[in-house]
């Protein structure tokens, strides 16, 4: 049964999967935070998704409306672009390199975290969601 993308149910399932599938070791014991800012959502309201990891452990995972908490990295793009990434139809690297997503934050650190971000996206893509 698909759940609605970015809904509380979707959030709950993503969080459970992230905790189960991405162990601190798989997350390279990373300490960082990232917020995705969704523009042009179907209902017109801006949304965000926020992750905070400490030593590879997911400490905070939020999905909401309006401004997200402060994060080390801030990625801004259209809802449609993020939805394609979450469905595994578009790579996040390509989305960044084609300018569909805009990243704010230290690029050198971002490079080190690129493979981890891919792992996160792969987990998100497994959730049966309705976009």
């Amino acid at each position, binding site marked *: 049964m698909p759940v609605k993308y970015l809904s509380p149910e979707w959030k709950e399932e993503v969080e459970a999967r992230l905790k189960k599938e991405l162990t601190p070791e798989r997350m390279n014991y990373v300490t960082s935070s990232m917020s995705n800012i969704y523009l042009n959502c179907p209902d017109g309201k801006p949304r965000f998704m926020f992750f905070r990891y400490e030593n590879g452990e997911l400490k905070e995972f939020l999905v909401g409306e309006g401004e997200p908490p402060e994060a080390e990295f801030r990625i801004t793009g259209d809802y449609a672009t993020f939805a394609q990434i979450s469905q595994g139809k578009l790579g996040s690297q390509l989305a960044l*390199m084609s*300018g569909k997503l*805009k990243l704010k934050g*230290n690029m050198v650190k971002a490079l080190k975290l690129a493979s981890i971000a891919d792992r996160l996206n792969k987990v998100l893509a497994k959730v049966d969601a309705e976009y």
Partner: protein
Amino acid sequence: MSTNHDPYYIDFPGRIKMIQQEMEKEGLDVYLGSRLRTLSWTMDAFCPWRSYVVIPREGLPVAFTFVIDAARVADDSWLDEDHVRGYAPMGGQDQITQIADFIKDELKCGKGRIGYETGISNYLPEGNLTQYEYEAFRAALPEATFINAHHIVDRLSLIKDEGTMNRFREASRLTDIGHRAVYEALINGGFKNLTETEISGIATYAMRKAGSEWEWTFTGGNEIASGYRTGYAGGACTPATRRKLQPGESLMVDLHAAFKLGLGDSTVNYLLAPVTERQRWHANNYVTIVKACLKKYRAGITPSEMASEMMAIAEEGGFSDYLVPGFEHGIGMVGDEWRIGSHEGPIPYWTDPNHRYQAGEMIICAIQYACPEEQIGFRYEAPIIIWENECELLPKCPLEVLEIE
């Protein structure tokens, strides 16, 4: 970062404060440096990729360089990785967006006065802001005012501090080692069948073994010329070629070493046997003018006065036709290798012929002697420090033209 007990220590935070004091006097909120000389002088790191240093009115600067090199630059620099950022071809991460966002969002200077660096140079890697960059920054920061402000760094970097001088002294010691290796390869007939590129390589290997970082100049590393190539009219740029040395010709070995962004630049000239009396006459003329030049350099003299006096000596000796009437080029940390630091002369962005040298300035004593019709020439280049009543010659290699059997 080195400490002030280190002979090569340079007070980089102090340099930034000096720039900030000048910014305050000139009402600048931000200094956007893009020239290679500015990057070396403020960051203590070699920045071969397009780079920028953004200096706020207070606090530490932030540098921006191509992401593939940012970690290395941060490691070499006195700045930490939070102050050396990488740009990349990604949304929000290109150099214009990153720097404009930094100025607007972090420095809150989107409406401020931004000093930047523009001008013209005969030196390709100068690094002035390009027209495209300028227009893109103007578009990204529409409420800011842009003011050409490179004179701030030019003036401040003119007089060298002790750490800089010591880096240059060490770089000259390295070129001396390179010259020794070349000399040993040439003697006892060793020059036969050697090519210019091999000579460059022999020197490079010796200098690198002794600690040189690279053969810094953008004119092709070590400059080696043999035979007719030594006699190019005005020819002060001779990247090594595959030409083989021949008996009976002249050889010019102009070596470059680098030590912590301090530069070695010194030349030794040779005559390969058999040597004619006419070749010796040219060689003696050259040595006469080198010695006269080194004796004359001191605080208070100007480039045009030097030229007049040296050309008068050459005229009297009957060899003024072979001499380029200029006896210096500027020098500083990597990227500062052509004109003398400040330029307030009649032709914009060229050395002011009436610049009066002050104690603590460094230049390259540079002499080009060339007789194209006889396919012979000699070059002298050596870093010197100007003092009140003399100059300090940094390389210790021979001034004389060496004859090789």
